[in-house]
């Protein structure tokens, strides 16, 4: 242990993580050199489009990608001072579901359709935390109450199909909470839900995060979701984090052109009808064949010659916590 200097190590520190998939057509660099830290009780939003690697990153952290022999990892995932990549499988199982829990995008598919809600909730308690069947049931009812499910005792005997999408996502959150996790990873938890339900679920996640001083990684494609809830944001593009900062700072003063372009391509509620959107030309790169240099250079309107030659590192100016990976960043004073 470190001597008591007053500085706690971060809850989670990801160091130069690579997750590559071996495919018949080559190596897909889904996550390619990602580093970040997350302190206790904070919510980190990870934003990116499809194929940016945000979901693979979340699954890499708790190592639940399919074990079909096609996954290649490199780098470290340090949780409370231990590198999870070096843990034996048994110890890693203790981390999953207890220290780190996960909520998935679509509650239609993330709950087992042929198992009752009760068992899906209590099995974590009885099998991982040594609860008796009776105690687990009591605890399960408490958990369902905590996530705002009415009449929890009756719900235990239901199958997922009997619940609405919003209710299922609440159950999925209750399952995640059963292990009393220190870190909750929510992978697009509201994308499959209606807007009015989306707000309810995000509010619930935020309330639980604060009550339990839980760290949360919120993965989303929606900048609006991040803006309303996350303490800090990381923007991913083609398997890398290209910008990372405190939320307000990042949204007010994006430095990486991709972040700016992403923000400008979203229709704003405050803009009048028929406002021309600034779309990003081209397509995100093919992960089997990523461009050299900065991965965004082909679509970047500020790109210069050397952008295609050298890859910009993710760095911050001294004294600032605003990290970005760009040779020619946007002016720090410019408002988005």
């Amino acid at each position: 242990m470190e001597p008591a200097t007053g500085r706690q190590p971060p809850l989670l520190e990801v160091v130069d993580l690579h997750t590559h998939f071996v495919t018949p057509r080559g190596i897909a660099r889904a996550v390619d050199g990602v580093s970040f830290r997350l302190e206790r009780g904070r919510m980190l939003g990870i934003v990116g489009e499809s194929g940016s690697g945000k979901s693979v990153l979340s699954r890499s952290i708790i190592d639940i990608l399919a074990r079909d022999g096609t996954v290649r990892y490199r780098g470290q995932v340090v949780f409370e001072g231990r590198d999870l990549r070096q843990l034996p499988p048994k110890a890693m199982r203790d981390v999953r579901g207890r220290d780190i829990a996960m909520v998935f995008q679509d509650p239609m598919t993330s709950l087992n359709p042929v198992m009752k809600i009760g068992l899906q909730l209590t099995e974590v308690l009885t099998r991982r935390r040594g609860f008796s069947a009776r105690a687990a049931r009591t605890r399960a009812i408490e958990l369902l109450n905590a996530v705002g499910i009415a009449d929890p005792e009756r719900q235990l005997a239901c199958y997922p199909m009997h619940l609405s999408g919003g209710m299922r996502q609440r159950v999925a959150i209750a399952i995640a909470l059963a292990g009393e996790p220190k870190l909750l990873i929510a992978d697009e938890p509201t994308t499959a839900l209606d807007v009015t339900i989306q707000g309810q679920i995000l509010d619930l996640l935020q309330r639980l995060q604060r009550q339990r001083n839980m760290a949360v990684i919120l993965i989303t494609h929606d900048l609006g979701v991040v803006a309303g809830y996350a303490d800090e944001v990381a923007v991913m593009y083609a398997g890398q984090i290209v910008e990372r900062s405190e939320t307000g700072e990042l949204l007010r003063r994006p430095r990486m052109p991709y972040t700016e372009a992403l923000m400008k391509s979203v229709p704003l509620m405050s803009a009048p009808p028929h406002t021309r959107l600034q779309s990003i030309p081209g397509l995100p790169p093919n992960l089997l064949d990523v461009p050299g240099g900065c991965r965004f250079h082909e679509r970047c309107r500020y790109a210069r010659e050397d952008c295609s030659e050298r890859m910009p590192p993710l760095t911050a100016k001294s004294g600032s916590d605003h990290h970005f990976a760009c040779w020619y960043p946007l002016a720090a004073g410019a408002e988005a």
Partner: protein
Amino acid sequence: MAYLRKRLLHLIPVFFLVTFASFTLVNLLPGDVVDAILADDQAANDPELRRQIKADLGLDKPLLVRYVVWLGDLSQGDLGRSYITGKKIGDLLVQRIPVTLQLMVMSLVFALLLAVPLGILSGYRSNRAIDRWISGGAFGIVAIPPFVTAILFIWVFAVLLDLLPAAGHAPMFFGVWQNLKYFILPMLAIGLSEVPIFLRVLRVDMITTLQEDYIALARAKGLSTPYILFRHALRPSLFTLVTVLGLQVGRLISGLVIVENVFALPGIGKLLIDAIDARDVLVVQAIVTFSAIAYVVINLTVDVLYAILDPRVSQRPGMA
């Protein structure tokens, strides 16, 4: 259970169709039961005697009339008497069915005990070495028909090693082991031939299931791999297997006929062959009817099993 009632109503036309078709087909068999009864007798050439026998058996009447008479008797639980031995066919079946049923159940249980764990393992480690070995082995078995394995087993276990009897049967009252040892080789012969199909089907479903989010969630819960495979993944992966199981029973019935004859097991398979040899039409008819009903009942059970496997089949939520 309105669904079940509807299925049962559908069975009525099926029953008439199957019994009438088999009645017609059996009667189209070349040869004559009179030849079998009179065997090598010179009397075989006596036309008057022949007509007399036919009239006694009711064979002088038209096919349709005989079918209706047969149906009438059947409705009173009378399957008729064997033309050859004069024994009641109902009694014959009651003697023979348990033997066949025991062989069938043992074979299926054996096949599933082998196929389910191997299928799960194969799906879990798909395209790895262990999966290739299992799949390769399965292909090997598929290539050999059951009667060849049957003969091979007799040669190895009965002739070379002298561990098990080559053929025959001992009823239960001789003791459980006495009874079972006659069943082991036929069970292996039939069961093994079913393993590859069960295994392949389960493997494919298992691979699909293991890619589901709820499996990822189960892993994220920190549950152990065997628990995830058996509790979370197995049940949703059983659909095709259960369907195939129902369909295979039909094939199994034909397999039983051959294997029972090879091992001289007195089940209905052996009875069927003997009856066909003797043109004992009513016996053949009874067996065909029985197998058809058994087949339909088994597939009905399969439908019920679907509902048990997946609550979504029987209970629909409010919104369609």
